[in-house]
């Protein structure tokens, strides 16, 4: 690397540290020319949390997958952790954790083997200790050597939560993270995802409107079709107004 490019690298890194964690302008995502997200603007400061609300088909999961670098925007600008997507996705990967509908765990591997594989892919230091800590945190230490296909949906969700935070991501993207979980497990997983003692930037998709608004700094309310009904401080959006956007479905 030349001195010039090293300087540019350091400058880019400095900008990335001070820039908003998420900066979205005019985001459109279409499937077969049908808009799923329609002209979305969004800014989220580092360390803040965002609740994404809306009925089925509002584009919430699509938004998470775009922020996770897994989907390309059809048009508009998306910057995550100071890096523009999809071009600079390699700078973002490894700093993002995604817990979605799919647990992303191999069914024929044990829980520990799955987490060990992800630890290698993310180059996690001291992986055995980290995996043991995480499994302890979600009450799954005794299940470490069980294959994923033998676990209940709730246990799979706990293991998936461990996978999502295994590499201590800067940005955490959560899609209904407590689905399938009993209240005790939900509390454990929520505590784990909450940041393990430090404040992560978090985007939370949830149909539990009251809880999501109560725990988030910002709120984004999407209508079916992906247009924005509300974007701003969570305290400025009432639970009733949010539920109205669901058409009484929530």
């Amino acid at each position: 690397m030349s001195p010039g490019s090293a300087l540019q690298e350091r400058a880019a890194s400095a900008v990335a540290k001070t820039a908003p964690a998420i900066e979205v302008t005019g985001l459109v995502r279409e499937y077969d020319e049908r808009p799923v997200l329609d002209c979305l603007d969004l800014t989220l400061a580092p360390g803040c949390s965002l609740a994404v609300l809306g009925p089925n088909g509002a584009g919430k999961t699509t938004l998470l997958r775009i922020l996770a670098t897994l989907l390309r925007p059809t048009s508009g600008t998306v910057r995550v952790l100071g890096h523009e997507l999809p071009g600079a996705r390699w700078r973002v990967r490894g700093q993002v954790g995604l817990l979605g509908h799919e647990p992303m765990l191999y069914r024929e591997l044990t829980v520990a083997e799955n987490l060990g594989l992800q630890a290698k892919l993310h180059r996690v230091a001291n992986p055995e200790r980290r995996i043991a800590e995480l499994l302890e945190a979600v009450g799954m230490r005794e299940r470490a050597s069980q294959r994923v296909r033998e676990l209940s949906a709730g246990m799979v969700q706990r293991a998936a939560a461990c996978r999502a935070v295994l590499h201590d991501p800067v940005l955490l993207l959560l899609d209904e993270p407590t689905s399938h979980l009993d209240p005790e497990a939900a509390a454990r997983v929520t505590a784990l995802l909450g940041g393990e003692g430090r404040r992560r930037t978090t985007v939370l998709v949830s149909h539990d409107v009251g809880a999501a608004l109560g725990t988030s700094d910002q709120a984004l309310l999407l209508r079916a079709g992906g247009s924005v009904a509300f974007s701003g401080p969570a305290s400025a959006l009432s639970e009733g107004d949010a539920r109205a956007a669901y058409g009484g479905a929530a």
Partner: protein
Amino acid sequence: MTAFRAMLAKDLRVELRTMESVPAMALFAVTTFIVFRYGLDRQSLAGSLAAGVLLATVLFAAILAINRLFVAERDEGGFDAFRLAPADPTSLLAAKAAAIVIYLLALELIAVPVFAAFFLDSASGLPAIAAVLALADVGLAVTGALISSMAANSRSRDILVPLLLLPLSIPLVVAAAKASALALAAGGPSYGGFGKWLVVLALYDMTFAAIGYGVFEYVIED
């Protein structure tokens, strides 16, 4: 290399647990040899006919494993998990190709002795056949892994893989068949021109490895 080793170890561990690919490939190969044995009604084969029987069997057995190569990545979120990691995408292609090479070597450890017992009067050509198969395995594995990744998200995966792989493997089959025919010639191996066909096989391997290296990232990205 860490991602390559991790993904290869994962695939081998899953195969050892489920035994989904290699036993099916071996059973297919042995059954095919039995069909050829009685279908051709010949006690022994030599030259291009022997080469054709061996290579066609290995090629179609390979398709069984190649079809399943990315099933777990597609069905269990493995593609997304891999893409979320700061890993070189080509390490996934290399790991998958290495897994297929290992499956094919395991298949050939069973299939070649059975082939020799069924069809060959002498085992003198087998060392040369081993060299041909080793190079053919690499080419099949690289091309197969690339095609399988492209077909993984299609509902017609089982049809697409052979439809795309068989035409692409024609140069490999031609070179391997020519070299194998010399190794299995009646009256003992004949090595005139044998090296030339090995070079063609190596060039095929390198060409498709380079193509895979260049395009795989675009195949697995949105």
